[in-house]
Every structure is written in C-alpha cells, then in structure tokens.
C-alpha cells in the first residue's frame, strides 16, 4: 500500500535525485535523440557518432584539459518527452549546449524552451526548413529538405537523363518536404512525375503501391524516405519484377542497404563520400568500423561533426551559453566554418547550414561515389 504515497513521494524522489551534483571536472554534453522506441534505429548512429568523437577529444586531452561527458537523453522522438528533456537541460546550469534533436517534430516542440532558456542547440538531423527561422538558438549541421530535394531533381535530369519518375514518399515532414522541393525543381527540369504514392512509418507491405507503379512504367522511383522502409520497398519491387532505377536522399544512406542484394545500383545523396572524403573522414570510418563493427551512416557522421563543432565553440569561448551562441552565429563564412568529416559546415543567418551534397551508389555491396557529380 506504500504505493499510495502518491505524487508527494515521487516529487521528493525527484528533489533528492536532482540535488546530487555532476563531477565538476567534466564538461557535460547532452545528446537528445530517440534511443528506444520505434525510431531507436536512427538514434543508434547518433549515439555512436557522439561517443566516438567525445572519446577522441578526451583521448587528445579534452577541451582545455577538461574532458567531455556525453549524456544520452532519450526522447523517443516523442514531442512530449522532448520538451521534458529540453526543460531539464535548460534548468541545468552545467549544460551550455545541446546536441539534438533528431526528429523535426521533437526539435520544433523543444525549440521554444531552448529559446526561452537561451540555450543553443545543434541538430545533426532535423531537416525541416522551418526550424532555423524559428529560433536564433537553433543551429544544424545538416542541409535542409528543400535544398536536397531540388538537388536530386537536378541530378537525375542533368547527370542521368531520366524523364519519367514516380515518387514513393512517407507521410512525415522529412519525406514530404523533400518531395515538394523535388517536384518543384523537376517541373523546371522537364522531368515528368508519373505517379505519387504514400506510406506510413508503420507500413511493412508496399506491394499495392508498387503494383500500381509497375503499370505506370517509370524510368525510376524516387524514395525520399528512411532506410528501414527503403530496403523493404526495393526488395518488394524487385520481387514484383519492377526493374527500374531507385534513388533516394540521405535517409536511405544506411548500412542496412548494403545487406540487401536488391539494392545494387541504388543512388543516394549524402553529406560525405567515404571513398572521396579526405583523410579525416577515412580515419573516422576506420575508427567507427573498429569500435562498433559496422559502417557509419550519415546520422553518425553528422553527430560526430556536431560534437566537434560544440567542442570547438567551448574551447574558444568557454561554457557561457550566450557566448557559444554568438560564436556559432559567427561561423558564417568558409574561413570561420568548421572543417569536419562531412565537409565544410557554415551557418547562415538562420543557423541553417550550407553544405555540399554528393551522390553515391552501391556497387558489389559497397558504397562508392557515383561517376557523375554535379555542383
């Protein structure tokens, strides 16, 4: 019956627990992302990327002698949990910058809280175009959906010469943002969209939509979604005898594609190319493989860089929140930008980043850069 002790007990527990203090010497760097629940698969890359960068920094002596302590803040991509996490971090004076969030919906929910607390945050993965404009404290080192969608439309028209395309999108903001930017640019490039079909994140069977696509005989199918569904879509399409090209955005850039023999020839945009990237990036890939036994995906790569940016900011201006924000905002030109494994990161006046996109493809179960790249 002690369970009856109700709210009061819980609150007391809260107080007791939160009064303990963090070891003084470490710089606390929270990473907010889904680590459990349906979208945990994306959080895995975020976690690995952050831990890898932090341990590299610490091994090299930390930031001005203090080491970084990554704390994982699980929010399941649930906006409600994201705001709880954000409020908790905002109230913690030892937190001077946050890495996160992953989903745009979580980012948009948490954003008013960070703005109010004047706490800067760098999202490695939220691509919703609205985000940057909404708060001066929100930065991201991932390109926006509208840039990538338009880039893809230009790529297939200029580099591949495909003229008939079907779009298979997920009903989320990432996918639909990409789709609308793609459609707009495709019109300019005279690429015909022969069909558009939707699916939800919970779908496992894509045959009805794919059967419909087969009737329309497109040159290629554009999948502006995520890899877990993307790999299923490609396999099921091949099973239905749909022999067309497939291409997608960075959402499809994931190791699971390599395990799928049907995905041979898949084209995706990516912020960094493993074989074409500089020595730093190949070092990252090497270290990542060694530590986690798998290929890094773009979540890992972007988070790795986001931690790098945060660390540099703290190194330069200390742990004052406002000063960090000013520092990040001042990273607005190539000279002041951050050279990471995903290339040069430069923030514009909205805190959005301008970054080059590349195209890579799968050959014999390995990612290689596509023959043709466009600017």
């Amino acid at each position, binding site marked *: 019956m002690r369970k*009856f002790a109700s709210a009061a007990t819980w*609150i007391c527990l*809260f*107080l007791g627990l939160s009064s303990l203090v963090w070891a003084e010497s470490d710089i606390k760097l929270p990473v907010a992302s889904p680590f459990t629940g349906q979208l945990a698969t994306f959080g895995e890359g975020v976690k690995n990327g952050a831990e890898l960068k932090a341990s590299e920094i610490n091994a090299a002596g930390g930031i001005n002698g203090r080491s970084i302590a990554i704390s994982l803040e699980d929010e399941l991509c649930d906006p409600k949990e994201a705001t709880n996490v954000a409020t908790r971090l905002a109230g913690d004076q030892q937190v001077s910058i946050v890495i996160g969030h992953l989903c745009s919906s979580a980012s948009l929910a948490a954003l008013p809280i960070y703005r109010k607390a004047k706490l800067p945050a760098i999202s490695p993965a939220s691509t919703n175009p609205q985000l940057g404009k909404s708060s001066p404290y929100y930065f991201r080192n991932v390109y926006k959906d509208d840039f990538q969608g338009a880039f893809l439309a230009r790529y297939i028209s200029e580099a591949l010469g495909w003229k008939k395309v079907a779009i298979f999108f997920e009903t989320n903001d990432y996918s639909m*943002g990409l789709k609308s930017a793609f459609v707009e640019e495709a019109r300019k490039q005279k690429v015909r969209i022969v069909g558009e079909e939707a699916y939800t994140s919970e779908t496992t069977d894509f045959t009805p939509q794919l059967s419909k696509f087969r009737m329309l005989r497109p040159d290629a199918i554009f999948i502006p979604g995520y890899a877990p569904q993307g790999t299923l879509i490609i396999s099921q399409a091949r099973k239905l005898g749909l022999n067309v090209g497939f291409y997608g955005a960075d959402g499809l850039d994931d190791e699971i594609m390599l395990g799928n023999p049907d995905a041979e020839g898949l084209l995706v945009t990516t912020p960094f190319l493993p074989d074409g990237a500089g020595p730093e990036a190949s070092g990252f890939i090497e270290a990542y493989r060694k530590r986690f036994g798998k290929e890094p995906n773009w979540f890992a790569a972007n988070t790795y860089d986001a931690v790098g940016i945060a660390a540099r900011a703290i190194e330069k201006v200390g742990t004052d929140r406002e000063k960090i924000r000013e520092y990040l905002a001042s990273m607005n030109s190539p000279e002041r930008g951050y050279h990471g494994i995903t290339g040069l990161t430069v923030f514009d006046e909205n805190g959005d980043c301008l970054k080059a996109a590349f195209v890579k493809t799968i050959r014999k179960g390995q990612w290689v850069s596509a023959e043709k790249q466009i600017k």
Partner: protein
Amino acid sequence: MQGGLKLRVFIEEHPRSAAALFLAAAALLPWLPMGGATDYVVRVATLTLLYMVLAVGLNFVPGFTGLLDLGFVGFYGVGAYTAGLLMVQYNLSFWIALPAAALHSALWGILRAAPTLRLTGDYFAIVTFGFSELVVLVIRNELWLTRGPMGIPGIEAPMLFGYALNRDWEYFYLMLALLFAVVGISRRLEDSRVGRAWFAIREDEIAAEACGIHIARHKTLAFAVSAAIGGAAGAFYAGWFHFLHPDMFKFWESILVLCLIVLGGMGSITGVMLGAAILIPLTEVLRVGLGRLVEWTEQTGLDWISPDIVNARYLIFGLLLVIMMRVRPAGLFPTVGVTFEMHPACERTRRQLDENRYAHETRENRHALD
C-alpha cells in the same frame, strides 16, 4: 494497506478538506527550493495534471458507463488542432479557442455515439479505435487544413489580463484551474440523476432500460462530456506547447490514459487522478534515477552495470505496470459496491473499508456515551 485505507476513508468523508489539501500542496510545489530543477519538476507536474484531466475525461465512458473506449486520443487531437488552428489562422484568443475546442470535440463525441450505441464490449472498443485512427489520419494527411506532418508551430501563448503566460509555473496553475473545474463537473455529474443512470447502465443495461432510463440519451451524454474534456485538454496542450504535430496523437496515448484509469481504479475520480500521479512522472523519475545510477556506478567502479541501462526506462515501466496490476488488481482506489467489478479483490477492499468505518463509528459513539 492500512495507510491507504485511512487515506481513502479520509477522502471519502471529507472531500472538501481533501481537495483543499491537494490544492494547497500543488500550489506550493513551484516554490519549493529545487534549484535548477524547478522548471523541469514543474513541467512534469503540469504534464501530470494534464493527464489527470484526460483520465477524468476518459473515465466517463469506461468508468461510468462500463464501455471500453480505445479511441480517446481522437478527441484530444480534435481539441488540440481546433484550438491551434483557431489561434494561428484566425488569431483568436486562447479563451475563445478553449471552449470552441471542447464543443467541437463534444460534437464528434455525439457523432460517434450514433454508430456505437448498440455495440458492446470489444466491438465497441474496436470501433472507437478505428474512429480515432481515422481522425489521426485526417490530421496527418489533410495538409490544406492541418499542415499534416509539417506540424503547426508558433501558437501564441495564452493571454491573461493582458499578460502572455510565459513561465512554467504559470501554465502549471492554469492547468490546476482546469483540473479543478473538470473534477468539479465530474463530481457533480457523478452525484446527479445522470450519474446514477450511468451507473445503472454500467451494471445492467437491460435492467436500466426496464427502469425507464433512456439508454441512448445517457450514453450519448457520457460520450459528449468525455469528448469535451478531452478537447479542452487538447486545447490547453496546444497553448502550452505552442506547437502541434500528428505524432503527438498516436494510439499509444489512448492506451496510456486507459492504463492510468485502470491502475488508479476505474470509476473513481480520485483513483484515476492517482493513477496519473503515479504513471506519468514514472518515466521521468526513471530517467533521472537511472542516470544517477550510471553516474554512481562510474564513480564506484561497478562496471558490470552497463551505462546503456538508461535505455531500460520503458522496460522497467512495463515491468512495474505488470507488478502494480498484480498487487492491486482492482486498481489502487477500487470503486466499491458495484457488481461490474465485483471480484474478490474488490470485495476484500470493500469489507475492510466497511470494518474500518464501523470501527471508526463505534469509537465516535463511545466518545458520545462518555
């Protein structure tokens, strides 16, 4: 066990004092010295109050009329989006959007009543589930209306006497006021003719009808009130979060609110609130607790505990849910004296309650004789 019973007897015998005590305790919460954690604790407490409102709202259908409703999140979503869109598109004040959201949800509650009136048990449950899934799909897919998965950002803060609410504790008090109103309405209805009619329907629909109770009208009323409360909670949510997204209204929310009321003790208003008070902060308590545990293991060098244990929050949540139901199968605050849940577990509580009261009364009488 005894402490719980005493608490229960106290609440039942002095409802006003209990309410006053609860309010006083709640009102003090934001002013306790908690350092940097104040906002966080107050936010989680506000969330708990929000779920108390939702639990009291859902309670009208399964608790009062005995029908398993798996679609409550639909009304919550309708209310939130109604309020959010009115505030963003038409620049209406929160205080107009709130009742509008409640009325709009109530309308859907009434519309839903038409096809479901003659359904019982799991058929009712699955139709309510299907209905709410349809609502959420409309929210997700009708971009012209709701902007779908782009969400609705930038919802203005509610104004109170020309002042825009800004701090966490201000929302906490606003939520407390809403809860107070909702519990007041709920209590009034529970003790009214309508309430008795609902209980009669819950116990035995046919007998109730034979006694002249208009089944359709009473069920529809219960659905409407329940939906309106869900809608009001949704409107508050929109004003508090300044942002809406279809992902906020997943089926899981319906399940969660159901868990609250069953754990608390279905049919009992105090019980369902207690359910919320325990389950809603639980995931956050586990978050903080497991985080501290990891720190502690790092300091003491107990490396057999993996730092990944912080991700076991929901695992423990599920386990605790199972254990709590096993320890208190009729809920923490079982409704007594109803055949609907007349099971050994309830029976035991009832007997203890009676004995307790009896002892209490004899003691009083003895004093009187002295």
